[in-house]
């Protein structure tokens, strides 16, 4: 029967028909939209609302940007050029761009120095961050960077940063030699050596102050976005070692040390940064010797460093607590003493866990450096709120300036946080 059927009617196809393209509603953009935008009534409604919001924002923003002008030397000329187009007056950014970046007091002809220091940052930072990919010697670049950057930004003889660096290097060498006799003697010897080198260096610097001298620039001349960057970088780097010490101190079994660390951390974390800046601005000078005359920027760095080290200490404490107890016990069973166990076993692991948290603190701190505008320092925000907005040339121009400030901060902070997430992924894979 089947035979007959097979012969009489060509019912069974013996060749494969060519694959037809799937129906349009199952392919490409349509399918994607159906699945991602209109899968249900609620979803459709949300899509429509989303599109409306996006449309509303873009329809306001795009004409403003597209019709904007970069011409004109003051607000009146700018308005004349714009007419009724409703565009932005970006001329203010063109004219004030150097001020926004460097502040209005940093000498024009020296602006290349902070610029070079900024770009060197990209050479100096990767060795610390990408330690797993780069050869170990590149860390020396990172170690060298603070001195080079100081010399470039503040100027003066190259000898003073050189001697500071030499003191630290000598201290480190002495430390590695003496360390086998114990951590504390090693540390003391290192400090003594460093101080001796600095003391000797002082004479040399005084005698030969003109060696490779760049024109010195006072701290007070720092301003603009550069000030935010300086404060952020300096305070975060300074607060890392202090934060580690505080975190270890908080875990210590010595009540005096522990008590001090707990009180310090909780106090700093309990008050807003702005009150600490008020302290730096109006109170701290009462507590320093009358003739010491610390710059405002130095006082601010002291307070912001104290602030961020308390937060970093808490992050590192989390890292220490997350380490399995077995690591501590293993270190003990090897007969390592406390400094050795910490330095060789515990801290490397704890710091690795803490890196994303530390980066978060760093980003937060960098954003918080804008608060110095409240105590009459001309950082990016202070500069916009003060001299630029009050200048008669640009009265009434603020959207453009704030947009510029937003973009500058966004680029830096988003970059750092993207990097942090990338690092988190890297660290996770090599854990497993």
């Amino acid at each position: 029967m089947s035979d007959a059927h097979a012969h009489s009617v060509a019912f069974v196809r013996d060749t494969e028909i060519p694959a037809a393209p799937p129906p349009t509603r199952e392919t490409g953009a349509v399918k994607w939209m159906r699945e991602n935008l209109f899968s249900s009534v609620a979803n459709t409604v949300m899509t429509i609302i989303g599109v409306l919001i996006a449309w509303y924002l873009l329809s306001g923003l795009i004409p403003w940007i597209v019709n904007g002008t970069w011409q004109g030397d003051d607000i009146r000329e700018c308005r004349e050029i714009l007419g009724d187009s409703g565009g932005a007056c970006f001329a203010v950014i063109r004219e004030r761009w150097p001020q926004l970046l460097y502040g209005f007091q940093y000498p024009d002809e020296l602006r290349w120095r902070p610029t070079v220091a900024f770009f060197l940052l990209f050479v100096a930072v990767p060795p610390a961050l990408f330690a797993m990919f780069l050869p170990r010697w590149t860390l020396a670049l990172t170690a060298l960077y603070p001195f080079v950057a100081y010399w470039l930004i503040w100027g003066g003889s190259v000898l003073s940063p050189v001697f500071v660096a030499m003191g630290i290097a000598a201290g480190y060498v002495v430390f590695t030699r003496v360390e086998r006799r114990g951590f504390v003697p090693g540390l003391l010897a290192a400090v003594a050596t460093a101080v001796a080198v600095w003391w000797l260096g002082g004479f040399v610097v005084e005698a030969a102050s003109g060696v490779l001298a760049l024109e010195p620039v006072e701290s007070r001349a720092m301003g603009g976005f550069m000030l935010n960057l300086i404060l952020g970088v300096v305070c975060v780097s300074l607060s890392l070692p202090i934060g580690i010490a505080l975190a270890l101190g908080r875990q210590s079994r010595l009540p005096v040390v522990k008590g001090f660390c707990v009180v310090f951390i909780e106090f700093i974390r309990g008050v807003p940064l702005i009150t600490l800046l008020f302290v730096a601005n109006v109170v701290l000078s009462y507590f320093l010797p009358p003739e010491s005359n610390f710059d405002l920027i130095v006082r601010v760095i002291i307070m912001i460093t104290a602030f961020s080290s308390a937060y970093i200490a808490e992050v590192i404490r989390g890292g220490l607590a997350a380490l399995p107890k077995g690591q501590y016990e293993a270190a003990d069973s090897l007969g390592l003493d406390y400094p050795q166990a910490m330095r060789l076993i515990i801290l490397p692991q704890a710091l690795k866990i803490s890196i994303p948290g530390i980066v978060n603190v760093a980003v937060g701190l960098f954003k918080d450096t804008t608060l110095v505008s409240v105590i009459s320092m001309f950082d990016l925000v202070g500069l916009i709120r003060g001299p630029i907005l009050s200048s008669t040339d640009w009265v009434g121009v603020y959207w453009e300036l704030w947009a510029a400030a937003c973009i500058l901060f966004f680029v830096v902070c988003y970059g750092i946080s993207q990097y942090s997430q990338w690092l988190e992924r890297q660290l996770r894979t090599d854990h497993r």
Partner: protein
Amino acid sequence: MNKTIFVATAAAAGLVAIGAQAQTLNQVQERGTLNCGVTTGVPGFAEPDANGVWQGFDVAVCRAVAAAVLGDPEAVEFVPTTGKTRFTALASGEIDMLARNTTWTFSRDTDLKFDFVGVNYYDGQGFMVPADLGVSSATELDGATVCIQTGTTTELNLADFFRVNGMSYEPVPIETGAEAVQQYLAGACDVYTTDRSALAAQRAGFENPDDSVILPEVVSKEPLGPLVRHGDSEWADIVRWTLNAMITAEELGVTQDNVEDMAASPGDNPEINRLLGTEGELGAMIGLDADWAKNAIAAVGNYGEVFDTNIGESTAIGLARGLNAQYTDGGLIYSPPFR
């Protein structure tokens, strides 16, 4: 043991501190620059220009003192201060003098331990309103929203004025003058109040200055002047007499242009000669060179010139001399004699 060390250091530091009080002049000369506190920006009075060079009426006083003490009007480190920080900056020694639209009041002079050395601008608090608000007197402002720049005596005067007149108002305190103007122009407040000089200065920068009027009432006395720390009378004398030299110079017709000639070829007016150091020992009496006043005047000009170039009627700010004319012209500007 601890305590002994503490007491010993305390005693030593105390000695140093007492010594330090009388040494502002030495410190300035050693440092080579004068640290002068100014505002963070009031057009005409103290404001960095597009190149970052500080300009203005108060700035000129700083430069004059620097010229008198150091011989160089550029040897000034301008320290921008806010209403909150100005007094501690001065008290802590961060700045040597404050020339920042600061009103001379009893409690500041006594309780806060400062010395006002004189008055360089007689001001008074006023009100600015949009012309289309239809207000012609401050007594019609019952119920209005008032923008105030905080950190000055302005808030207290305002509270007193409305209280005395039995009126109510909505205070909107704003930190910086620029933002207060921004709020005022946006209509977020009906009235902007601060010293009349600052009102005039800021109104001059508006797109349409005629859309705003400054009301006739002056609700307070605001003698603005430079001040120094209490307890260093030598330094106070230097700042006081530098200011007086500028005023006397105008009275005697000594200007920036002719001061060099007058000093080079002394005339027969003994007061001019004493002022310019060609006669007598006035400079030595305050520990400065004989040509200190000449340097100050050569650097910035006399009081009238400083007024005219920074805030006078020919500038965008356009303030009339008014109370700030020489006493010979019916104003209050009056310097004790150089003798």
